């Protein structure tokens, strides 16, 4: 899922990602993102840091609290490196600076997805071993 307050940016990026065989939906605010996650199972969230309403960091916190298994990739304007680092501390998978090359983003998403899969496997195993 892609979260960005700039509708055009989010839509275009979503189209390009779809073209690269990633199932993508885009929303335009932190609130919408949390609502969407409540209804649709999601693997990776691409999250813009600077948004009106609840900002990226706040959204990230909510996501990590409610869905700890979902990996988040942060998108920043260039200069707020501090914010990106803060995001990493909270638990974001990685960050990228806008504008980024689409290929870099795709690689990051694949990495994030792999990590998530391993996580899920492990969690399942743990659940199985604890139940069994």
């Amino acid at each position, binding site marked *: 899922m892609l979260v960005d307050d700039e509708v*055009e*940016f989010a839509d275009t990026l979503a*189209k390009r990602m779809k*073209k690269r065989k990633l199932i993508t939906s885009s929303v335009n605010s932190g609130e919408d993102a949390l609502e969407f996650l409540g209804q649709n199972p999601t693997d990776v969230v691409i999250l813009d840091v*600077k948004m009106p309403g609840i900002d990226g960091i706040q959204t990230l916190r909510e996501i990590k609290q409610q869905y700890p298994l979902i990996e988040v990739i942060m998108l920043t304007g*260039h*200069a707020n490196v501090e914010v990106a680092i803060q995001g990493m501390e909270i638990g974001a998978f990685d960050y990228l600076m*806008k*504008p980024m090359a*689409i290929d870099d983003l795709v690689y990051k998403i694949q990495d994030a997805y792999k990590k998530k899969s391993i996580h899920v496997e492990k969690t399942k195993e743990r659940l199985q071993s604890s139940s069994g």
Partner: protein
Amino acid sequence: MDQDKGTHNGYYYSLTRNMLLVIILVAIMPMIVVSSIILYQFDISYHEKVHAHLEELVLKHKHNIDGFLKQKLGDIRLLGKTFSYEELRDESFLRDRLELLQEIYGPVFVDLGVVNDRGIQVAYAGPFKLGKALYSNAKWFQMAMKSDHVKSDVFLGLRGIPHFIIAVRENYNGQPWILRATVDFVAFNNLVENIRIGETGFAFILNRRGEFQTKPLFDLIANKEPYTDFLKDSEKFQDGVRIIERDDDAGNKVIYVAALLKHGDWLLVYQQKASDAFSDLRRTLRVTIAIMLLAGICIVVIAFILSKRMVNRVASADQEKEMMNEQIVETGKLASVGELASGIAHEINNPVAIMVEEAGWIEDLLEEEEFRGGENLDEFKRALEQIRTQGRRCKEITHKLLSFARKTDSRIQDVQLNDLIEELIALSAQRAKFANVDINVNLQENPPILHVSQTELQQILLNLINNALDAMEKTGGTLNVSSELEGDYIVVEVEDDGPGIPEANIVRIFDPFFTTKPVGKGTGLGLSICYGIIKKMGGDIIVKSTMEVGTTFRVKIPISKDEQTEA
């Protein structure tokens, strides 16, 4: 500008003048007041002293003269009482008496005479031929007939020489007769003439009619008014002495001291010019005034120097303040430009991101079958590539703008300066080789560890090195990079021998967006970013440049105190 300077000068001029006046007033006023009071008191007491002295003098002489007259009268009275009329009529006896008197008292008595009740001198002893002289009309004779003894005023008498008569009346067989003696005028005169003080002080005796009884030392023809005034007031100072000061005809102040003699018949007057009597006072006054004038001049000179110096201080302080103000304004300008820049950067970045993304989308779409083999496919791809390149350029500009606004990684780290410089040199080595530039590195050994942002310091030095390489790109040359410990600072110098920076540009090189590079090559932000960062660190950056010789940038980086002691 000139007018501004003019009003400034006027301000400092009036400041100098006010200070001068205040200092002079404060210093001189007390001096004048104190000196005046002291002088006034001194004047009064000195006057009193002089007056007392003169009174004493005149009183003493009054007693002297009175005593002299009384004694002479006593002598004659004794003579009259001791010897009879019969005995004294004998001229040779009389002559013996006179000789005896002259032997005892000196030549005070000139002659002796015996006069009968009709005024005929029946016997005479003395140097003049005055036997049988008729005195019935003489004033002294008439007075002597009324009282027992007489001291006459000074008169010329029969002999034509000033003298005065002492006469006593006795009775013989019921008939009065008179023994008279002439007192030598010169001897008497000496008594008074000897009263002399200073150059103008002298004494004389007047009778009730204001006629001189002694010969005054100076001519006193002119004004007898003061003396007649004394005579009028005589009752008021029966036994005492009276002092007045008044101006004489020539306008000089004169002191008159008077005492009555001979039971009020005569007046002893002592007079002296005030200037003479108070000559000591005058001298003191002159010395005092001279000292005060001297002191006044000293004060004025010192006040002048002091105020001048103080105003110079104030002026230089003002100048410093003005410079500070200018610097503050400059810094403020840079800061507000920074704010603006970061705002612009943020606003531009998003649209640029969208554009690049859209271009990417088109590129994606071009991969589709339907466009393959299209005529203009290559041209499309080239155009999209161009959009992406320019997008990247925009990104770089906004990046730089934001770092100018100091939003880059500014975390403080321990930085080893030498390692950092060597890294940068290695980075630039390839470029330097192309530009035909030799790089010399001369670093301070074991510099203290710096507590700064590594990224920022890198940015500054890389910027300076790049600028130097740019300057020498066409000609080639030598780049010297050195570091040195200077007090609380480490100074890094980046020196090139390129074409130098024109005077007109030097003042502007730290201004944002000022660049001499062709459009698209430089943003004009490099040095202003450096400036902002180094100022924030508490350091300084200075540029020195000489045309055709080269340019040197000196970066002063502060060493934190504790590090310094460790080092």
